[in-house]
């Protein structure tokens, strides 16, 4: 029996639930697939017969099959990798105060996390898109704070409700910056946060003479994302010793 359009047959629901798949409602998603996800997919098991796909990523050679439930490229155990975009990306960056070049709230919805999964990696990526007038090598003071308490559009209502997680000098913004959020300390109060709210602050290094408008450009060209790796132990039985 054909289910009503838009509804799932009981069989399909059962199958999706078994496979832990949750299809997006509505029209097909249009978000581009990040190259890191194509790269991780290509390193997947040989058995996947890719018949190609309209939005296939760059052709890459099939890599040898990794250990089951281990994400070799990231060096962590795991069988589920999620690429999560900053939910506040559309919110325009706030005009920075004083000598701050950029102050940007970052908000990541982590409600997909399932208590039976173990978090093995939460890697923040900041990609400033390297606008043309960005000097190739210039020190920047970058700090990441954990925004707590009540928020409005992902922005903490009270500035003192911030816990600085990291403050460091970065030599350039030309290449994507990666930060291991698990290593930086607890992610919210529970082991399974429903979301991750951060505030990114950027100060130009000493005696830097910034081109006019560069800070605004950096705020608009910034793409922040999280790579979240989890391990569902029930699906990753250690490979049983080959019998006989």
């Amino acid at each position, binding site marked *: 029996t054909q289910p009503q359009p838009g509804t799932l047959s009981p069989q*399909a629901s059962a199958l999706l639930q078994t*496979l*832990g*798949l*949750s*299809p*997006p*409602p509505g029209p*097909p*998603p249009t*978000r581009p*697939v*990040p190259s890191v*996800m*194509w790269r*991780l*997919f290509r390193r*997947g*098991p*040989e*058995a*996947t*017969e*890719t*018949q*190609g*796909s309209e*939005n*296939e990523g760059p052709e890459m050679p099939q890599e040898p*099959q990794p250990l*089951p*439930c281990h994400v070799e490229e990231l060096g962590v155990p795991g*069988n*589920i*990798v*999620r*690429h*999560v*975009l900053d939910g506040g990306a559309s919110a325009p960056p706030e005009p920075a105060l004083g000598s701050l070049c950029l102050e940007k709230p970052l908000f990541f*919805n982590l*409600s*997909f996390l399932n208590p039976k999964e173990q978090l093995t990696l939460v890697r923040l990526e900041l990609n400033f898109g390297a606008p043309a007038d960005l000097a190739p090598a210039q020190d920047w003071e970058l700090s990441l704070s954990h925004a707590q308490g009540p928020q409005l559009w992902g922005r903490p209502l009270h500035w003192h409700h911030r816990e600085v997680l990291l403050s460091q000098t970065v030599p350039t913004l030309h290449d994507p910056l990666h930060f291991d959020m698990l290593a930086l300390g607890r992610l919210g109060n529970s082991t399974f946060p429903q979301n991750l709210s951060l505030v990114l602050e950027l100060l130009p290094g000493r005696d830097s003479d910034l081109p006019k408008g560069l800070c605004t450009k950096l705020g608009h060209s910034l793409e922040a994302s999280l790579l979240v790796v989890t391990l569902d132990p029930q*699906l*990753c*039985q250690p490979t049983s010793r080959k*019998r*006989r």
Partner: protein
Amino acid sequence: ATYLGPLDSPDPPCRARQLYINFREVGWHNWIIAPRGFMANYCQGHCFFPTATKISSLNHAVMQSLMHSVAPATTPPPCCVPVKLSPISVLFYDNSDNVVLRHYEDMVVDECGCR
């Protein structure tokens, strides 16, 4: 989709048969980014004696197939089941517009045997 090749015999021995799962046919191609499908395969065929001794069978299955051959009414033949399986990875969009890569163990039948 299964490919029913010419039957190798009226009662074919236990082995892996082709079964291609095409995500487009179940309407999942909009949100499953890759692959478009994969060869899952399945096991089919008999485990009678002495065939069971020539394929991947446990000793118990060989004994059971022998018992079935001498006293079919009392002992059923062993079962033709997967004995070697491979994983696959699936890249898809979830319902929060995240791009997800999920690894599934034991999704492809590589080899069948009697158990």
